[in-house]
Structure formats: structure tokens, C-alpha cells
């Protein structure tokens, strides 16, 4: 065995590499993604080549073409839209993936993969990015895709009148330059090492230049629009001219919303639909009781948390915040409230599925003695605090508040749980009361999550936690293209939040969906329900 092969063999014993290898071998990950993930771990190209060569891929099942997929999301309404810039819910995201493509696509490891862009390259300090577009791609209208379309589609988000829900993500773009028909250069205001991931967001779909009417869903996606009624349904049929060889597999997709959870589940059990998003953990047993359907559980980074505002009494005292953090009976919350569908949280918002997750911070356990100790130091022994909660705050928000009440009573802290109405919770309670429940979806990169919700001047900094060093770290992280350095930077940032932040995050909650056993080819992506809605291009119906 050559020296290089020995190193490669030793590397595959490493847990990160081994899990990547398993995914690659089960055909859940492309060769390209595998190599780029290895590179992200700091493994050289030649070593990566040896590892890839030593990992034969299992023969994947042959996709079956044809059939109509009927699938349902939950929330939907008259404001359903086909304008990518205004996408804000699973029902819209699902349509986005049917009718459009982005420049990049975010894969199961939160790494940007080529979509309409074939490749991309940053400059040395990540302030400029050049994207090479795929050639020969046509929109549904027959128009060929070029760099003008891509530029228009991204710049739309910056236009105030568009009302983009993703405006904040592209606010860093200073200008876009069309270098030639298939080359687009973005100049950024400040460095951003994660820029390709941002272009893979749900809203960053590419439309023909100048489009203002989206009623025909004029994208390049695997399906063409046949019918769309907001708040009712959409009907899509296969784009015979789709650029991805052999895809899509389905003939038609009927995609609609069934708001009521029980109705949605009954429709799946009765065979009226083949796939549904958003399964209540309480209903898992019911799905498992049927031989025809299965639960799909995606490890993710969404969480329901306690927010403790650091700019007002009594939660401005970090001792009190630590007491609350030690009172989190994490394992019990995960087991009882989420029926085990999640991962333990460590009072910082980056989950273990994120490449930047810091596993060096010791997990904070449930410890009433330490909680009591910090409570005394805070001078709150025998005190009372009021926690505001609501069912809209996040999955399990009311249960978590009640669980805390129970644990707190054991150390002589009285917690009043106040249930506020869902209407107006985000305007009247969130970010206003010292203690309240909140909930967050996972963001595609650690930097986005931390910037949006934890930097000193962030509008969504719910606990008003301010830390100059933390802000500085995020700026450094954006500018760094070196994987090891990035990991160190984000580790320090996570540690700061864990030790002094205003949030107690007892666990991360999996996305739970359910589908018929006939549905094959589903790929989990941790960014959202139903594999971040990327199913239209990959699934097929068996039998």
C-alpha cells in the first residue's frame, strides 16, 4: 500500500469522512458533492480521488417514469403566489421547485451544488464571485437562458416595490456585471464566503429578464404550469424540454394545501394524496400503523426557544439566564414533547447538521443544583417570573413553558405561564416582554442565522443581546475561505452565545413529513419540510 493510500485509508476512519462515504455509496450524494465535501474538510484533491475510487456506489433503483403525484402542504391561502421573490411558505416553495431553477441548489449537507450555474469562482477575499451559466437551457417560453436573465432575477430582490421576502439576503450585492452571454460577475459590498449558498435559496429563482407577470410561472424548471388557483391548487405537467437529462420522472403534479392536520393525514391514509408536509409528532404512531405510508424524518436546525431579553430586568442578569438554561430538562423535552424526533440543543442556534456546528462546546445538562446556585447569585431565590407563550411561537412552545414551570418549582422559582393569543403575538409579545417563547427555522448558513438573529444591530435580535467580539467574528467569518479557520471562528461565536446569550435552546426539532411507500427517490435536505421542497425533480411513483 502506497503512503498516500495509507493516509486515505486512515482518513476514511474519521467519522465525518466515513459518514460522507456512506452517503455517497448509497447514491444519496453525487460524486461531485462528495469531492467538494471532502475538500471542505481540508482533504486534498488527490487524496479525495483515492477515497472516491475506494468507495464503489451501490446501484440505485431505476426511476420509473410517469404518473400523477398528488401532494399537499399545510398552510395555504389566497396570497399563494408564483412570484419567487414573494415565496414564504412550503406551498410556494414547492411550486418554486416545480417551475423554476436557481443558479445553485443547496444539497443535503448545505453545500451549494450547480443548478443553472455550472461553476463559480471567488476572488481572493470573497468580495467578487464569477458564475458560469449552463449553455442551451431554455425557459418554458422557448427563450434561451443568458446572464441578463440571471442578473435581473437577483437584482429584483433589491427593488423596494417587489416586496421580496429575501431582500436582506442579497443586500450585500453591490452590482452585477454581465461579462458575456454566459458569465456573470457579482461585486459584493463586503466579503461573503457563503454567497453561492445564498443563490440557492428558495426565492433566488431565475426568470426571464424583465418579467413582471408571474402568472404563467415562466421558469426553466422541470414542470410547466397548467393551472394555478391561489389558495386552491396548482397543476403542473412535465417540461419535455427540461435540461437535466432524464428528469423529471413524474408526468404531472397536483399540489395543494390542506390546512387541517387531521384532514391531511386522513387524505394520505385513504390514498387520496401520496405525500404531505408537516406531520404532528403525536400522529407518528398512526402513520406507522399503516403498511402503505411512512414517516420521513429529516434532521434539521429548527428550534423552539426561550428568549430572555438582556436589556431589561430581571433577565439582564446572566446568572438568571444561566439558571434558566440549567433548568432545561433537554432529554425529557425531546422525548416527551417531540417524541424523540430531534437532537439535543446546547443554548446556541447552530445545529449538528450544519457544517459549522461546534462540537467542542460541552453539552449543558439538566442540573437543578447549578440552577439553584445561579438563581441565588442572581438574587432571585424564591422569586417569580412570567413567561409568555403561544401556539404560534413554535412547535411545542406551550409544552416547553409548562415543562420549565414544573422544573423551576423544584428549586423554588415560581414561573407564571401566560398564554397569549396567536394574533398579534409577534407584534405585541415577541421582543417586548422579558421572557417569551420564540421559534426559528433553520437558515442555510451559520453566518446567516447568526447575523439575522444575534448581531448587535439585527432587527430580529429577539433578546437584544449585544457583544462586540461576536459581531467582529461574523465579519471575519464572511471573509474567510479557509475551512479550518472558518470553523474556529464560528466555534468561538457559538461559545459566546452559549455562555452569555439570551436564548435557551433545549433541542433542535426534526422536520416530519409523511408519504406513501410508492414514492421513491426522495432526498432529505435539512432546510425545510419535504427535503426543502426539492422533491419535484427527484421523486417518482412506483407501481
Amino acid at each position, binding site marked *: 500500500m502506497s503512503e498516500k493510500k495509507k493516509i486515505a485509508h486512515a482518513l476514511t476512519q474519521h467519522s465525518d469522512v466515513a459518514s460522507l462515504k456512506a452517503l455517497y455509496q448509497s447514491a444519496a450524494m453525487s460524486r461531485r458533492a462528495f469531492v467538494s465535501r471532502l475538500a471542505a474538510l481540508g482533504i486534498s484533491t488527490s487524496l479525495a480521488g483515492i477515497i472516491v475510487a475506494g468507495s464503489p456506489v451501490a446501484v440505485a433503483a431505476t426511476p420509473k417514469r410517469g404518473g400523477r403525484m398528488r401532494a*399537499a402542504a399545510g398552510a395555504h391561502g*389566497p396570497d399563494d403566489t408564483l412570484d419567487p421573490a414573494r415565496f414564504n411558505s412550503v406551498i410556494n416553495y414547492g411550486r418554486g421547485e416545480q417551475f423554476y431553477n436557481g443558479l445553485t441548489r443547496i444539497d443535503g449537507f448545505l453545500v451549494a451544488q450547480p443548478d443553472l450555474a455550472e461553476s463559480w469562482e471567488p476572488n481572493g477575499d470573497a468580495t467578487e464571485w464569477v458564475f458560469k451559466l449552463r449553455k442551451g437551457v431554455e425557459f418554458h417560453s422557448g427563450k434561451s437562458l443568458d446572464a441578463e436573465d440571471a442578473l435581473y432575477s437577483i437584482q429584483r430582490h433589491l427593488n423596494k416595490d417587489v416586496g421580496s*421576502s429575501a431582500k436582506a439576503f442579497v443586500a450585500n450585492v453591490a452590482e452585477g456585471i454581465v461579462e458575456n452571454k454566459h458569465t456573470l460577475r457579482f461585486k459584493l459590498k463586503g466579503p461573503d464566503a457563503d454567497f453561492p449558498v445564498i443563490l440557492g435559496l428558495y426565492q433566488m429563482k431565475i426568470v426571464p429578464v424583465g418579467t413582471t407577470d408571474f402568472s404563467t410561472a415562466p421558469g426553466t424548471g422541470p414542470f410547466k404550469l397548467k393551472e394555478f*388557483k391561489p389558495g386552491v391548487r396548482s*397543476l403542473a405537467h412535465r417540461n419535455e424540454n427540461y435540461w437535466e437529462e432524464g428528469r423529471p420522472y413524474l408526468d404531472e403534479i397536483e399540489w395543494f394545501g390542506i390546512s387541517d392536520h387531521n384532514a391531511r393525514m386522513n387524505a394520505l391514509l385513504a390514498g387520496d394524496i401520496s405525500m404531505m408536509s408537516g406531520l404532528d409528532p403525536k400522529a407518528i404512531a398512526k402513520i406507522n400503523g399503516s403498511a402503505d405510508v411512512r414517516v420521513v424524518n429529516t434532521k434539521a436546525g429548527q428550534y423552539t426557544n426561550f428568549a430572555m431579553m438582556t436589556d431589561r430586568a430581571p433577565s439582564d442578569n446572566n446568572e438568571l439566564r444561566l439558571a434558566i438554561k440549567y433548568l432545561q430538562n433537554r432529554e425529557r423535552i425531546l422525548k416527551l414533547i417531540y417524541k424523540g424526533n430531534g437532537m439535543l440543543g446546547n443554548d446556541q442556534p447552530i445545529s449538528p447538521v450544519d457544517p459549522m456546528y461546534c462540537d467542542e462546546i460541552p453539552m449543558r445538562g439538566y442540573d437543578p443544583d447549578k440552577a439553584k446556585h445561579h438563581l441565588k447569585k442572581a438574587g432571585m431565590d424564591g422569586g417569580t417570573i412570567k413567561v409568555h407563550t403561544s401556539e404560534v411561537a413554535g412547535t411545542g412552545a406551550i409544552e416547553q413553558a409548562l415543562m420549565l414551570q414544573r422544573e423551576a418549582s423544584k428549586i423554588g422559582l415560581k414561573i407564571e405561564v401566560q398564554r397569549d393569543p396567536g394574533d398579534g403575538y409577534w407584534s405585541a409579545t415577541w421582543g417586548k416582554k422579558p421572557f417569551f417563547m420564540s421559534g426559528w427555522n433553520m437558515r442555510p448558513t451559520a453566518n446567516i442565522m447568526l447575523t439575522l438573529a444575534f448581531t448587535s444591530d439585527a432587527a430580529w435580535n429577539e433578546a437584544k443581546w449585544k457583544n462586540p467580539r461576536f459581531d467582529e467574528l461574523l465579519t471575519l467569518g464572511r471573509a474567510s475561505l479557509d475551512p479550518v479557520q472558518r470553523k474556529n471562528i464560528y466555534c468561538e461565536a457559538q461559545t459566546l452565545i452559549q455562555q452569555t446569550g439570551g436564548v435557551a435552546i433545549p433541542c433542535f426539532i426534526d422536520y416530519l413529513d409523511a408519504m406513501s411507500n410508492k414514492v421513491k427517490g426522495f432526498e432529505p435536505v435539512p432546510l425545510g419540510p419535504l427535503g426543502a421542497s426539492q422533491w419535484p425533480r427527484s421523486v417518482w411513483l412506483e407501481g
Partner: protein
Amino acid sequence: MWLVVLRRLGLGIITLWVVSLLVFAGTEILPGDVAEAILGQSATPEAVQAIRDQLHLDRPAVVRYADWLTNLLRGDLGVSLAANMEISEMISGRFKNTLVLASLTAALAVPLALAMGLAAAMFPGGRVDRLVTISTLFLLSVPEFFIAATLVLVFAVHLQWLPAITYMTEYESVWQLMESLALPILTLTTSVVAHMARMTRAAIINVMTSPYIEMAILKGVPRGRIVLRHALFNAVGPVVNVIALNLAYLVSGVVIVETVFAYPGLAKLMVDAVSRRDMPLVQACAMIFCTAYILFILIADVLAILANPRLREPK
């Protein structure tokens, strides 16, 4: 008689106006506005202000009410704030769906209720009467969502005879439409039939105690003929009113059935609109529902007058 109808119509219009005031006032005092509802957790003061400016929400309520009312009188329902679409366009399809479900249910429920009521009134205290009384009391006391859930569990999940939800897809035949709507129609029928059947029974039994019926009995007229020829017409007034109320309920109040069966009707649209604080849409739906109530009651009154000449002269 036309005078009576005209007077009723005039009263109806005044009622509509009062309702428009109430609806507008009601939507004004709801906490939050469409800007906050659209943005939810992601609301920042700037974003909220931007949407408010865009939608002209900062004008005084009186001005907005006057604008809305004048547009309404011109037949312009306005533009939905959340969806940015013409409300008339959003409502038309939904309204059609609501009418389809309501009329199919009525076609089944009204004759059934009348037949049950008449059968029960024929021999009060008899076996048929007791059966009708017990079953209608049972149906009245079981909530609609329970009936719906039970029907779905039995016919959709276990037997798999009927779909658990209604597809509003392209129907190839009337049979398909009936199959798809079978469970919602059945659910709604059980919830409205009891009310109408009991009223029919009560009204006829009430008339049956009048002296002229006693006279008919003494003359030896057969029981069935007494009920159908002599009693029924005098009992029409209260019966058609109850039918009218139930029909109006079918148009406006079936939000639970629409939710359980994912049926895209008008009531669900209104509930969605409330949660999104889409006031023009809420107001439009409320006005349609109110108009439906007033129209049905008006028709019921006219029918009652036709059946009973004594009501033709206003007192």
C-alpha cells in the same frame, strides 16, 4: 302584497348598511393589521411601515370606510391586501363551489327533513314520531366536526369507498362530482336536517290543535289528507323560515366542513382572510353572507305570504 315585499326589501338594505358598519368597525378593532400579519415574526418597523404606506393603511378609518362603501355601491369589491388580486376574481370560483355544495345538500336535506317532519306529525307520540324525535335530537347534539371525522374514518380511511378530501379537479362526470362531495354533503345534511324536521313537526302539530282541524276530523277526513291539505299550508310560514335560515347557514357557516374536507369554499376564505387581516376580503365575504341571509329570509317571507293570504295586508 308588493308593498309588503318592497318594505321588506327596504329593511333588508338598511340591515345591510348596518352590517357594513359593524363589519368595518369589527375589522378595525382587531389587533394588528395586514402589514404585521403578512410579515409575522419577520416584521421590522421599517418593513411594516413600507407595507402600510403601500396599502394606504395610515388614512383615517372614516375615510377608508367612505371609500369602501362608495366602491361597493359601484360593484367594486376592491383589491385583496394580502394577495394583491381583484377580490371579485378571488371570490367568484369560491362562491360557485359554495353554491354547488349548498344546493346539493339542500336538494337532499330539505325533502328529507319535510318528509321526516310530516311523518312524525301524522301520529304524534307514535313509533315513527318517537324514532324521528330521538334521531333528530341525537343529530342536533353531536357536533359537526365529530360527524365529519367519523364519516371520514369509516368511509375513507377504513373502507376506502370515498375520498377523504374533495378534489376540485376537472370532473369527468356528474358521478365523480357526487363521489367527491358525498361525505361533505352527508355531514351537512345530518346537521341541518334535524332542525328543519323538528320545526316541521312542531308547526304542523300546532296547527293540528286548531278548531278547523277538529272540524275536519269530525267530518271524517282521512288523517293524511288533513295533514297535507288542511294543516300544511298554515304551517308553511315557520317551516320556510327555518329552511331559509338553514340554507343561509349552508352558504355562510360551513367553515368546519370546508376545513375538514379541504373544500375551497367561501367560508374558509373568510377565515383565512381574518387571520391575514385582509380587511377588504373579510368585508366582501361578510357582505355576501349577509346578503344571502337577507335574501333567503325575504324569499321565505314571500312564500309564507303566498301560502297564507291573511299575511298579505300589513297590519
